[in-house]
């Protein structure tokens, strides 16, 4: 029933570009972090940004979200230019963000954390579907948000943005510091969201995990995108990738 509702939603035709980033530059105070990022994400894709620590992957996500004030270039989402928009407005256009540090609020219980992000458009996942994806959360609704385990906090951080109706999700290192069994659960979740038509922009250090879910990869280095390829070209690019990532 809920899936049928999701299918009726007016989404961009499969394959159309929903996000186009052009010559994105960003600064933290005086330090110039992004030096011209170019990439795009098409509707229904899972795209992964790979790169070493400090390459600018997180900054790219934060710039798209409008959290970093000093930025230039062009970010087009759903054919709207958002380079100058404030982050609350960007969220209302249908981009949802799950930050690396997860951002669970300690002064809110689990239910309040889950219900916190406002619904920005109809068609978000109903609570019963969220609890099917993350059964642990249902049992801990009255716990303080930060009393959850790391894995549960990550699930909560993903779960709360699924409610909002945003169809474009940005997940920053969702597997960082988690046990393999939980990483697997998050992998299943991402696959399931993709099958429901969500578009996902992922930042990952865990390349093995990324390879189980991603359609395409971009390599970020020194604040620039230096390469990109599809998952089907992965084995042909393995050597290059090892060089890029230094693994």
């Amino acid at each position, binding site marked *: 029933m809920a899936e049928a509702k999701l299918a009726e939603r007016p989404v961009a035709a499969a394959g159309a570009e929903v996000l186009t980033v052009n010559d994105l530059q960003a600064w933290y105070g005086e330090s110039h972090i992004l030096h011209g990022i170019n990439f795009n994400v098409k509707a229904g894709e899972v795209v992964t940004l790979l790169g070493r620590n400090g390459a600018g992957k997180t900054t790219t996500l934060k710039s798209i979200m409008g*959290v970093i004030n000093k930025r230039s270039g062009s970010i087009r989402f759903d054919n709207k230019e958002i380079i100058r928009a404030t*982050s*609350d407005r960007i969220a209302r256009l249908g981009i949802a*963000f799950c930050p690396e540090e997860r*951002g669970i609020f300690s002064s809110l219980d689990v239910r309040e954390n889950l*219900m916190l992000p406002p619904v920005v458009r109809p068609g978000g996942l109903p609570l019963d579907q969220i609890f099917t994806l993350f059964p642990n959360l249902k049992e801990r609704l009255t716990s303080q948000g930060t009393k959850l385990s790391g894995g549960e906090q990550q699930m909560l951080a993903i779960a709360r943005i699924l409610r909002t109706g945003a169809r474009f999700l940005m997940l920053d290192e969702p597997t960082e510091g988690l046990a393999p069994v939980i990483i697997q659960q998050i992998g299943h979740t991402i696959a399931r969201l993709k099958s429901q038509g969500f578009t996902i922009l992922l930042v990952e250090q865990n390349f093995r995990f990324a390879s189980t879910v991603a359609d395409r990869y971009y390599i970020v280095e020194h604040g620039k995108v230096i390469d990109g390829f599809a998952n089907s070209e992965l084995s042909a690019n393995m050597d290059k990738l090892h060089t890029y990532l230094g693994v």
Partner: protein
Amino acid sequence: MQALYAQLLVGLINGSFYALLSLGLAVIFGMLNIINFAHGALYMMGAFVAYFLLNLGGINYWWALLIAPVIVGIFGMILERTMLQWLAGLDHLYGLLLTFGIALIVQGVFQNYFGSSGLPYSIPDQLKGGVNLGFMFLPIYRGWVVIFSLVVCLATWFLIEKTQLGAYLRAATENPTLVRAFGINVPRMITLTYGLGVGLAALAGVLSAPINQVRPLMGADLIIVVFAVVVIGGMGSIMGSIITGFALGVIEGLTKYFYPEASNTVVFVLMVVVLLVKPTGLTGRAA
């Protein structure tokens, strides 16, 4: 015994004002990270607005309870939009100095036009007189102030701790950037929060007008004690500031009965003790 009850009542009334004011300070500090030294002046403005409403517009006390907090709240929101918002992210000292300056200006303007003596504001007819409780005589207006303040404090607590709006507020106190990235207009929420805190101060001003008269310096006298209350209770906690407000009013009242010489200093002595033993305050979270 009669005298003891009378002092307890006075203590409860002062406690009502302490609670309303420190509650507003706590809410403002949580969201804006500003120690709002203008709070006393805004409390005074609440009383003056009630006075103007009655004497210039013939608008009675009951309407003043509603209108004065709104008018002063709007004045506060203008202050926030035009001045306080530029201090976001700076040291507390800047906000404290700016609001202290605003307080001096506002009080100076009122003193210029109204001098330092009190203007009368009479108790509304419905609340005149008193009842004999057997063990003491209770002026109805005073009982009303205590109960109404308690209701307003608890309603504010409920709003912040138990509603979705309050969840936004608490979350934005912790991590405004992320809350904004969820689609909430945090700057507007900050302005409204300042308006709410200021409105509570103005409400206390209206409540106090029939008891303490309307004077330009009424807030300046009170705010020093209120800051001591806030230090004792701890800045971060809503319920903490309500309980500490009432409790310190009562402690002051009891001191007036048992050892009157110390009644004006007991709050400050407690403040010193709390600062030495638990610098974050009784209910405060570490900053």
